[in-house]
């Protein structure tokens, strides 16, 4: 499955994608009073106990780790919504609307804030099901991958990551095939003119 074999194929490791996802905003309910926090990414706070506030996920998790807040699960992470999405995913060919970082956010919350999510087992299995269905869809879509029709809406970060490198290369290949006559293949042209000394330094600079 692409999801597992992704590590060498994809451009970013899942950890890196997760890191990017930590900038998403989530709602927390702090249980302490704290002045505003000023970060490069923005100012958050001031924090008042029992009053919900939006902060980046990484800050939420850091506060959660210290027992200073509870994280309110995002709206889409309700059983009703997820069941609906799962049904939609199974029924239709298109991707349902989910947050771009749904895989990472849900993963982080399940790992570190499981006590804040009502019915965590159910939610977790739903999210995993959705992810599996969508990854499967990504794979089947790849099978009939054509350069002309690459319009997949609502793909999430992890899913994009799986096919990013592959599709880039594939598109390049398509491009190369279509313009085979016009632009001679680089490799072959290089092979044909090994004796040209002037080309050598330039060739060394090339990535491949």
């Amino acid at each position, binding site marked *: 499955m692409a999801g597992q074999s992704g590590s060498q194929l994809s451009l970013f490791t899942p950890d890196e994608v997760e890191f990017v996802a930590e900038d998403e905003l989530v709602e927390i*309910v702090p*249980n*302490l*009073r704290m002045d505003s926090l000023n970060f490069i990414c923005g100012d958050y706070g001031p924090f*008042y*106990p*029992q*009053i*919900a506030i939006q902060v980046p996920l990484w800050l939420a998790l850091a506060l959660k780790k210290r*027992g*200073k807040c*509870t994280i*309110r699960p995002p709206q889409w992470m309700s059983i009703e919504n997820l069941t609906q999405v799962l049904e939609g995913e199974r029924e239709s060919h298109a991707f349902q609307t989910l947050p771009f970082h749904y895989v990472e956010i849900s993963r982080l919350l399940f790992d570190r804030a499981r006590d804040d999510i*009502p019915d965590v087992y159910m939610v977790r299995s739903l999210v995993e099901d959705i992810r599996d269905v969508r990854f499967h869809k990504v794979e089947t879509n790849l099978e009939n991958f054509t350069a002309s029709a690459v319009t997949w809406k609502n793909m999430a970060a992890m899913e994009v990551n799986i096919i990013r490198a592959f599709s880039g290369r594939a598109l390049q290949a398509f491009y190369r095939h279509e313009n085979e006559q016009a632009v001679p293949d680089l490799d072959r042209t290089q092979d044909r003119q090994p004796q040209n000394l002037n080309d050598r330094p330039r060739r060394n600079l090339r990535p491949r």
Partner: protein
Amino acid sequence: MKIRTLKLREAHKPSAAYGAANGSSFCSILWDQQARHLVTASSSDSGISIHDALLPSTTPKILRHHRDGVTALALSPNSTCLASGSIDNSVKLYKFPGGEFETNITRFTLPIRALAFNQSGSMLAAAGDDDGIKLINTVDGSIARVLKGHKGSVTGLAFDPMGEYLASIDSMGTVLFWELQSGTILHTLKGVAPNTGLDTSLVNILSWSPDGEMLAVPGLRNDVVMYDRDTAEKVFTLRGDHLLPLCFLSWSPNGKYMATSSLDRQVLIWDVLKKQDIDRQKFEDRICCMAWKPVGNTLAVVDVSGKYGLWESVVPSSMKSPTEDIPQSSKKSNGLLLFEEEGQEPCSSGSLGDNGEDSIGESGPPSRKRIRKRSEFDEDRSTENTIDDYGLLPQRMAPKRAREQLDKGANEELRSTAISVRSKMQEAFQPGVTPVQPGKRRFLCYNMLGTITTMEYDGYSHIEIDFHDTSRGPRVPAMTDHFGFTMACLNENGSVFANPCKGDKNMSTLMYRPFSSWANNSEWYMRFEGEEVKVVALGVHWVAAITSLNYLRIFTDGGLQKHILSLDGPAVTASGSKNRLAVVTHASNCLPSNDQVLEFHVFDIRNGTRPSRGRLPLSPGSHLIWFGFSEEGLLSSYDSKGVLRVYTSQYGGSWLPLFSANKTKKSDENYWVVGLNASKLFCIVCKSPEVFPQVMPKPILTLLDLSSPLASSDLGADVLENEFILNNLHLFQIQKRIEESSSDGRDTTELDDEAFSTEAAQDRCILRLIASCCNSDKLVRATELVKLLTLEKSMKGAIKLVTALKLPNLADRFNNILEERMLNETKDMSEAAGVAVNQGSGLGRNGTSSEVSSEPSCIPSSSTTLSAPHFVKKVVNRGAQKGRSDHNQTAREVQPEAATSGGSAELRTTAAAGNQETSRTSNPFLKSSSNHEGAAKEAMCQRPPSNPFKKSVK
């Protein structure tokens, strides 16, 4: 009532091998239909004993088929088939009364806890620690249905006598009503019965009344609660002298009486219609099962040590016999006469397993006795009217009773009396309390600081105190409350609790519990004889309690009884903050229009004064539901129509409506107010129809903007108008506080800063209002607004604005206003300077007060606030706290500087230049000094520059 003793005979040996460790085990007892045999079983004995009721001395027949203790017994209605369930997970069927083993009808993976036959005997329901209730066809042993829905182990099952429903109860106290036809859950009553936990010798049971109209379930308050057959609404309760939760209940065959046994080892006999206990008996051990003799006035009991006995003539002979007028629904007779008439009458419950009833019927031919009995029933038909009366009575009364019950609940909840009981004086309530909900934790107090929650178990409560800010508030250990506190109040230093009196025995008690004290054991109790605490309040170093005798009792922290005052009327509520106590009382009876007539009093506890009192306004037809102080210390009230009012001293003390739930509310939300500050209301949003929050999950405060109930104006700038009013109020408050603290001789620096930033905000708001006025061609209004501007810069901005909007006429007017103001200003300034000369070092204070007095009027002369006195003070302040490098402050400095008011800039310059310590701030003003006006300069020169520094040195 006489206490008799009953001799019990041992049937099963209590054994420590299984069952509870203390030797108590759950035992069951049954009569057969003709009352010739008694069947007993014990969860610590694998044998089932069939005793001959007529010859008790003969040794019982013992059936040893189970490999482990027997936990459940059931006898088919025609007494031909006995079912037993055991800890060995199996359900077995026997012939009766012979006792021949017939079949292992089903198996579970965990012990069985309950068995029940339906009325025709065609179906057996079995359940236990497994998660489903199995409905088993008794003929072929096929499983007709598995009903899943309970979260704990099912300990009680009861088929409705009319054959439509099955009721089940689990160890967590949840009752489910199942519809047999569809196998769906009709009603769920969560946590209505006690949670028996893991003690298997104590099980929750439930029982339908013989007429099927009511379901009896043990309640949470050592009572029996009757639920309506169809609606599952509470109909009434049997509450009396049981001191501990019930462990068994049994209806008499006619449904007129009920026997209940409790953990307190008593068995009570109730007259159900009168809801009164008529007899009782105390036993050596807990009675865990009882059975009324089907014919005759006898109750068979068995206790947890396996001893059984017969209580003869239970119901006094003066009363109707328990077997008289047995209600006969056609279905019941169908069940009884199953053998003869089977197949002719449709049996609604038997739809799942009708076919094979005969096989059970066959095993025992109908005895003569039964036929005789049938003829008795036929006779009974003649008296059916009376039976019907009994049968229908509860049904007819059900809705009415339910409403009464509701009303009672509402009264209990203290808050919403007036909703349910119209034209009645509102009862006393404690702000931040939620009503009692059986089996659930509730708030005794919820304020901006923290919460006090309580949960009642049997006879005592468990109280927890939590602070919202876990990092700062003290950690308070949970406590057990034997008083049953219903009122509480919490602040930083301690908590106070009180309970109403319950009967003659329990006096009303007040308890104060400090969170930290240097002395041990510094909590204290006060008892009130013949008096009941209605409301409590807490402040800094004082505790107040208002009692039913309309006494306001004030105690100190340490429990000293300091003052006792008589209030004017019965208390409604009270709230404390710092050294102020606010009390709301009834001023008179309700008006005919249902309006409460309330009065409030504010007491200053430290000084022993009453700063303000007056009537407390409410929306028509509403009642007070929250009362307290805002974070700034303003008295606020919230009524049931969703209007928040704040008390100000404007207009000689009046209440301003600052929030109306109807205007902001989404239709499906209710707001439960917790507190407020200057611009926001803190509340918990409850989804309708709920009006109060639950403890779990932890509620979250929502902030709502305060908004005056403005008329919708032709301006179309409601937001700005609202902001304008709120800013005005805010300014007024700040000025009042400045006045107060300066008269106390305290430092007003921070308040001055706050006043300044509010003024700036107000100017911004006014400018925007002017813009919208100009856009909608309301030029007169724009001119009025300009006069309200405080800063010179803002006035210039206004002139620029109208010039840009191509309103030269208006610009001229604005210019005139500005000139007029500057003229006044210079005049005032020279006066002020003169005063300064005269008063010398007293200037600082004088300046402040002149500023205060001039600002409320705010019209042309308001610029004085900006000029001399104000800025003198500012510089002085800066000198005093030179190290402060506050963002705001620098911003503020720049702003007035830009306003090229010669007077103020010059003043600052002179002042700042002299003050060497503030070299950082002095430079910009030196620069600006070049563009001041000559007249202003002269005025300034008259002024001795030394004055401000005198103050700063001081």
